[in-house]
């Protein structure tokens, strides 16, 4: 079972590459009432303590594989089911300092059954979350 907020407490952590802290990750549960093809997600913006990390610069770990932003559009057969999470991996050399941060996310969702003017729509969440280490 996942936390009710889209942004999860667990999973918020610094990430390393080649022995150095290269960034951080934010874990999100599927915020929609149905699971979807990943191609319907046009990217996820992350803001931490007011600093914006735009969707196009982030990477996305979904169902065990990691994708660049530009790859999402082609993922017609990869799904993000209800009740599961994905990680948004944000590049930031040195990562975030341990402690509590204010985290905001916007999932840009293209719902084909929404009026064209609302495609994509921003699905927002915001909360405090903690980097332990």
């Amino acid at each position, binding site marked *: 079972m*996942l936390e*009710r907020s889209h942004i999860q407490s667990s999973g918020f952590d610094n990430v390393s590459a080649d022995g150095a802290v290269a960034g951080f990750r934010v874990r999100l549960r599927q915020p929609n009432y149905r699971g979807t093809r990943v*191609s319907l997600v046009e990217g996820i913006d992350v803001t931490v303590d007011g600093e914006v990390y735009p969707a196009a610069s982030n990477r996305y770990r979904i169902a065990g594989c990691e994708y660049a932003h530009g790859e999402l*559009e082609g993922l*017609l057969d990869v799904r993000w089911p*209800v*009740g599961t999470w994905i990680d948004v991996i944000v590049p930031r050399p040195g990562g975030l300092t341990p402690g509590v941060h204010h985290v905001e996310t916007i999932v840009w969702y293209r719902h*084909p*059954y929404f009026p*064209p003017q609302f495609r994509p729509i921003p699905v927002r969440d915001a909360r405090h979350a903690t980097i332990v280490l």
Partner: protein
Amino acid sequence: MSGAFKYGVSLYSYTDDLGTVMTLEDAFGHIADAHATGIELLGEANLPDYPEVSTAWLDRWYGLLDTHKLEPTNFACWIDTEASRSRELTAEEAAAQLRQDLDLAKRLGFRFVRPKFGVIDDELTPHPVWEGAVERSLDLAAKLDIVIIPEIHAPTPIRHPVVEAYVDFIQRTGTKHFGLLIDTGIFQDRPLPFWQHETPEMREGAMSFLNGIKVPVEQLAEVIDYVPFIQAKFHHIDETLHDHNIPWERIVPMLKSLGYSGYLSSEYEGARDPWVAVEQVRRQHALIRKLEREYDAAHAAEGEQAHA
């Protein structure tokens, strides 16, 4: 005397609860405990491996149906005409999606499939591939004994070109495997509360239908022959059993007088605080059952007077 309603619940009611505070097993328990007999499922929401389904999952599904004495009612699916940004689905591709969901629905024992097509305008006119996709699927629907039922959902009223096109389609093809799903949100006659991030400007503009499109319940008579299934959409019923948005006191007598004896399948769509949906669905069933009893009692009395 008209027949009795059947009472069901859509798993949509437990959106956000499922996966955070509730398992599928729990949902079955809540539905059965409300004395309902039907369960409605959303393929892409409730099947963990959609569009696949494992035999283990099927065993679990049929075990739960048996344990809780529930029958599968409607299977919701989506035809994502804009799944890719670069090009839209062809009618053949849309039909392939629909046929895949018909097969899946049949494996789970459903009798109805609701396809939700992508739309092309702010009136939610479905993408024109809907007709070719459905027509290419009618033989399979007949073979599987499933009725395909697109949803008449706010802001689309009953008197609308979209509904006319569906009725024309039924009359032209003479099919018994296509019909209309009425979502009771079209009868909403009082405004919904503002949703998070909604502004007054939005409510006056594109979101004005959230104030209720107030379709007169009498118009049900114009389409009821094509309506084998109803989603009982609602948003808030208070502790006096008063619904703040949907006029059940007019919907129930109208459906009774039209002889509707299919399912009313709860679609709770109100505040998403954990567990609220469980109680709200119970209130809705208590309310509709009370109105149904009152209708029956009044008409039993009328019947007695007529015979006196």
